[in-house]
């Protein structure tokens, strides 16, 4: 007998076999919930069973806090978890990481797998996304010709852009044939012949199963391979088919897809008009200010009355020549008047001379009359004393004084014999 193992040692061996065994780790298990207990710690314990087996399961608080629904007794679920050994009790457990309701869960599982696979291939890479033409002229639509989606898309698109060109590639959008039909339609619209600027592919809301064709691998690939930019427009806002991942744009609804893809023409027209108006107005302002400057210049006399400038100069010239004339005239006049004055003076001089001559003649005559010479000539004489002074009074002569008598033809030396004062003619006074 070999050395026996301790229970603990055996448990450890079991643990090594189980822990991290890919067959037992992160596996999806489906079964029905039974014996569920919500522990006050927040952990959830239950047993998962099917008709043949059961396994106890622990869904710990830190894992179950993200769960969006309540787990209930009898629910069929699919649980993601790993098997762990609980050695203290000699049991094994499923340590649950996530739970889905069966049905939905199963589909979701499949979809998640597909999504993962395609993502790995790079089908959803952001670098693959193309931008959409701003102003599409012609759009392609892939949907059912009788569905609500088409009606919604047409309504919105034509309201926004009344002269839009639309090509519908009809497709079945639910049921088993749908994927092939959708793929065919997308491929057809990708042909150059149809010359579409973008494609909207989708359908209206429905059950999870109804929307499945848009998560079908072939369809998702057709979205990814579309040469023309493509919009996935499936269901309602809450629906996320895988086509959303592969498309260049995922619209929450078909109407939203049309809203996104097609511009509001009236708004664009309004923008063009507005910018044009702004431009017109701005230019008018620039021109009117330039015009103002121009008319400012234009109103300057040199432009309005170009002659005016010369007129002014002429005027100035006139004024100058006038004043020159004036000055000249003045000078002339002055000279003339001076000349006149001179000539007047000459006349005066003549007159004066003449009158002076007359005066002189008169004077001379008078002088002749008054001249002692003539008196002397008439018989009078002038007596001079020895000093030559005129003796005009007897008082000035003394008896015995030698005096000189001036006569008209010579002089007489005389001696005063007597001095007799008194009237010369007749009543001679006796000298005392």
């Amino acid at each position, binding site marked *: 007998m070999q050395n026996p193992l301790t229970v603990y040692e055996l448990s450890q061996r079991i643990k090594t076999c189980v822990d991290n065994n890919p067959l037992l780790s992160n596996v999806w298990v489906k079964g029905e919930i039974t014996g569920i207990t919500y522990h006050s710690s927040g952990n959830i314990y239950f047993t998962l069973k099917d008709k043949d087996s059961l396994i106890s399961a622990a869904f710990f608080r830190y894992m179950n806090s993200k769960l969006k629904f309540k787990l209930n007794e009898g629910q069929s679920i699919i649980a993601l978890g790993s098997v762990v050994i609980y050695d203290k009790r000699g049991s094994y457990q499923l340590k649950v990481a996530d739970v889905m309701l069966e049905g939905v869960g199963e589909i979701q599982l499949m979809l998640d797998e597909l999504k993962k696979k395609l993502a790995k291939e790079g089908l959803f890479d952001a670098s693959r996304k193309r931008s959409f033409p701003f102003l599409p002229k012609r759009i392609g639509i892939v949907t059912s010709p009788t569905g609500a989606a088409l009606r919604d898309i047409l309504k919105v698109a034509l309201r926004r852009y009344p002269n839009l060109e639309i090509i519908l590639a009809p497709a079945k959008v639910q049921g088993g044939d749908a994927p092939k039909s959708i793929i065919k339609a997308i491929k*057809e619209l990708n042909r150059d012949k*149809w010359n579409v600027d973008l494609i909207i592919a989708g359908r209206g809301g429905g059950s999870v199963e109804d929307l499945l064709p848009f998560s079908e691998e072939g369809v998702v690939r057709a979205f990814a391979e579309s040469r023309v930019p493509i919009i996935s427009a499936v269901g309602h806002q809450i629906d996320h088919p895988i086509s959303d991942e592969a498309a260049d744009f995922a619209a929450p609804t078909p109407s939203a897809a049309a809203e996104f893809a097609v511009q509001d023409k009236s708004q664009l027209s309004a*923008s063009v008009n507005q910018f044009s108006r702004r431009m017109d107005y701005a230019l008018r302002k620039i021109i009117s200010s330039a015009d103002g400057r121009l008319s400012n210049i234009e109103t300057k006399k040199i432009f309005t009355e170009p002659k005016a400038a010369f007129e002014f100069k002429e005027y100035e010239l006139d004024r100058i020549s006038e004043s020159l004339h004036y000055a000249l005239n003045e000078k002339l006049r002055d000279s003339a008047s001076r000349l006149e004055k001179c000539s007047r003076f000459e006349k005066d001089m003549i007159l004066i001379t003449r009158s002076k001559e007359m005066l002189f003649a008169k004077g001379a005559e008078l002088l002749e009359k008054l001249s002692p010479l003539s008196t002397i000539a008439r018989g009078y004489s002038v007596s001079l004393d020895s000093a030559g002074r005129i003796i005009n009074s007897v008082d000035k002569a003394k008896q015995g004084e030698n005096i000189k008598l001036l006569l008209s033809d010579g002089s007489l030396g005389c001696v005063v014999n007597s001095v007799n004062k008194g009237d010369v003619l007749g009543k001679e006074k006796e000298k005392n």
Partner: protein
Amino acid sequence: MEKKKKKTEETKTFESALEELEEIASELETGELGLDEALGRYEKGVQLSRFCRKKLDEAARKIDILQKQGDEIISKPVKLKDDEGEIEEGEDVQGELL
């Protein structure tokens, strides 16, 4: 030179033309351009607005539905009921191309 200009004019998108038009409007509004330059920009703006209007009216409203005819796929014009976006009743259209 002239040819080159024409080519860029053709490849110009509505979007970039509209953007440039707005730029020109803003430029003119600053009032900082000289008259000659302003007239030049304005002329360009008028060209752009004409281009934009032309682009907006380029599409001719029509709705076609593709139909399978033998091995061919053909397009068939359809009429819509009012503004409701619904295809006129009586239009005989196939539901798919297969």
